[in-house]
């Protein structure tokens, strides 16, 4: 299986720049995910690879074959690329049986009848639906349809598999199971896969590498751990996993990091960070909810951790854990804890090295900000 190389891809609709110099390489057999909020250009990138969109400029090649190169005025139409693609809505042809759905790409490739049958059965077996080969799509559940769509994309042994939010039409419970199943299948087949999603859990769980996109830019490309633990920007931190953001001012710079004054309530905290800051900088401190701990106000915290006084607004039971909404000044901070039953004034503790700092940025939507503000 070949590498996929996307270079300097640009796409402009009218005067709307939808892709801005997107550039990445996907290694042979890799599960590569494009992650980003709605409208950031994920589908457009994928469609450029599939040939369903023509890039305004840039080049895409798979192995030694160049699919598109605007400099050389080269463009291979989708039907010439031998890719497999699964769409969000599955796009099964409703008037054909499952077997006929799978047969169509083979007919186009002039595979002979008996071979067709063999390939179709093999592909359906792979997705566990051999017994339903004569059904029509509308006679199947959503999960089954999704697997048929995958079988159709695999039946003609495409060189690369493209998936555009293939799980988003499944209900929440099934989605988790389908996710794990998809991961097993891809590992078995070893096919190079490009996956589009706006669901960060999906991206983290499935991918070998993730490209986080925003507004047509690629902000960060890395393994799931890199993306989650060391997000390149506050935006990535906000988008991948849950995160609390607190505004602060740098009051002192130490060898390992900085001392900060929180704007929400004026308290001090120290942060370990490789980031260069200078005194007086306004910064945003980002902390994941599970990195925060809540103690009753009278308990003493471990030395060396930051302690911030807060007040419990609400407690939510999540089954396995508890989620607290705490009030820090006029700000709501979310904490996930194993321990329930806290109320009233509490102390919030956090290790200095569990905090990330970023130049001050508005990373939350206006809506989210409104929901996270309370009367102080």
């Amino acid at each position, binding site marked *: 299986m070949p590498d996929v190389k996307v270079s300097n891809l640009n796409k402009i609709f009218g005067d709307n720049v939808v892709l801005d110099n997107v550039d990445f390489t996907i290694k042979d057999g890799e599960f590569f995910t494009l992650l980003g909020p709605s409208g950031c250009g994920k589908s457009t990138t994928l469609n450029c690879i*599939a*040939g*369903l969109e023509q890039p305004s400029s840039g080049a895409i090649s798979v192995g030694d074959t160049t699919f598109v190169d605007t400099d050389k005025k080269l463009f291979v*139409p*989708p*039907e010439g*690329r*031998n*890719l*497999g*693609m699964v*769409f*969000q*809505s599955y*796009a*099964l*042809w*409703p*008037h054909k049986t499952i077997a006929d759905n799978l047969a*169509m*790409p083979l007919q*186009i*490739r002039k595979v002979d009848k008996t071979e067709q049958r063999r390939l179709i059965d093999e592909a359906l077996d792979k997705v566990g639906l051999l017994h339903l080969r004569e059904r029509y799509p509308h006679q199947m559940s959503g999960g089954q349809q999704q697997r048929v769509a995958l079988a*159709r*994309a695999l039946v*003609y042994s495409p060189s690369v598999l*493209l998936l555009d939010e293939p799980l988003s039409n499944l209900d929440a419970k099934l989605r988790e199971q389908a996710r794990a199943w998809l991961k097993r299948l891809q590992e078995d087949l070893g096919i190079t896969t490009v996956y589009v999603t706006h669901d960060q859990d999906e991206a983290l769980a499935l991918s070998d590498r993730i490209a986080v996109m925003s507004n047509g830019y690629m902000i960060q490309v890395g393994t799931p751990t890199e993306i989650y633990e060391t997000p390149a920007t506050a935006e990535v931190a906000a988008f991948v996993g849950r995160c609390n953001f607190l505004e602060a001012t740098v009051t002192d710079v130490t060898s390992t990091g900085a001392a900060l004054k929180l704007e929400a309530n004026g308290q001090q905290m120290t942060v370990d960070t490789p980031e260069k800051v200078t005194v007086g900088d306004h910064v945003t401190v980002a902390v994941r909810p599970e990195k925060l701990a809540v103690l009753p106000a009278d308990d003493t915290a471990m030395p060396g951790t930051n302690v911030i006084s807060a007040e419990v607004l609400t407690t939510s039971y999540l089954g396995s854990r508890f989620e607290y909404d705490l009030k820090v000044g006029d700000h709501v901070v979310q904490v996930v804890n194993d321990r329930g039953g806290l109320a009233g004034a509490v102390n919030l503790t956090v290790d200095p090295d569990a905090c990330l700092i970023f130049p001050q940025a508005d990373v939350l939507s206006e809506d989210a900000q409104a929901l996270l503000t309370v009367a102080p």
Partner: protein
Amino acid sequence: MLLFWAVIIFLAVLVLAPVVPTLYQSLLDRPLYEAGGTLSLDNYVKLFTEAGFGQVALNTVLFAVMTTVLTLVIAVPMAVVVVRTKIPGGRFFAAAMQWPFFISSLILGFGWIAMYGPAGFVSVKVQQVLGFVPWNLYSIPGMALTEAVALAPIAYTFCAGALRQSDASLESAAQVCGAGPLRILFQVILPMLRPPIVYSSILVISMSIETLSVPLLYGQPVNIQVFSTFLFRNGLQSINPDYGVLGAASTIILAVTVGLVFIQAKLLKDAQRFVSVRGKATRPRRLDLGWLKWVSVAAISIYVVMGALVPIVGLIFRSFTFIFTPLQSPLQSLTMANYQRIFNYAAYIQSIKNSLIVAGLGAVLVSLVALLAVMVARRSTFRYRRVAEYLALAPQAMPGIIVGIGLFWAFAYAPFGLGSFIQGTLWALIIGFGLRALPSGFGSLAPSVMQIGQELDNAARVSGADWIKAFTMILAKLITPAFLGALVLTFVTMLKEYSPAVFLGSADTNIIGTTMLELWVQGNTGSVAALATIQIAITAAFVGLAGLLLKGHNRDA
């Protein structure tokens, strides 16, 4: 790409063919066929100063406005009641509301005169009971009412479609807030119907401007002239027809209707405010009107019975009698002679055949052209795809008579003598009628094509099919039901059509509509009724057949 260009150029030629000669004639000081004319604006000056056009314009405006208002008054409440409330026999009424659409307004007009005219059956009965007849059919309101009954199904269909899709929880929300049914109707439902109301109003206005039959039948004896009868009289019956003035008048009407289409676009510009259809479908909930539902049922029944059923029954009755007058029992003169006359003359039989050919072949061709236009407008990445849409919808703004006159001249001046091959043949009628049916075809296909997700063709492309294969292997099959629907609609439209034929027809190309006019002029009203009955029977058979086909198709899909 070549195909896209071909489609657009084809549409442009088709649409502009009748328009260009009309514009040219309006600036010429003599008929097009006379050599050596000079260009000037004199015709327009003459039109406004001399020809009594002021009164005609006023009448036309009155007629159009009244028709539109009456149409809405009939259609909108009925759509709300039928779609949104619980009434007994709702399904039946939903179907019955469409009936008047299947009858041409010429036939409906005859039927209404026979029933409600000054000496109509109903009028005479009322006269006997009350001593006077409280209405006057031969007036602008009378014309408008008949036309409104004929056009109400269009507005009904538009509004019902919108109501069917709209989110029922908007009404539930009002109800939970404490609003009663009437408040919900006026504050929630009606304001949101603005797009279908505006859209159907524009359509009704342009249709009532160009309709010929009802104004001719009702308005002529009492000298109420509207635009279409003005064209008819000055174009066909005048002592000395002035083609320049005719052209000018046509141009003005063309401008008005095109203007209306623009207004429509403007009125609905901030269309977001009326979007009531959201992603997740909600289960429709019907309001319970209480005792009001019986009032509604009564109102709808009156519309269906008085508006369509009684005139049709009268018409069928008429077709089996020699003379039909309240002065004598029709049973005295029962006869088959009206039908015999039609089947005795080859020319009349030919006209029925011609109608079937024109409507049948035409429906297929128009639907195909409409499909091409839809595919280009909605399914291609072609730069000028919007143009295809506008061109396909433009004939909506063209009165039938203008299409007729314009094409007549266009054929006469077509290059390489092409026109003479077409002129006077059935093809001329197919082109003329087809042009007028194109917007309906387009309108009925476009939504269905848009409903079919783009990803179905994309999936085919990615798995190796080119544009053509993707269409033939995937889309063609999926579009079939919508295509059948468009066939029915265009067939019915073209079977009813006759006004362009007044100019485009010839001895060999009589159709039912023109034959009816001829029979009427001869005074063979019975045979007119017989022919009308035949036309209704054909329509019913065709609609029924298509319904069966559609059902069969749905079953195996």
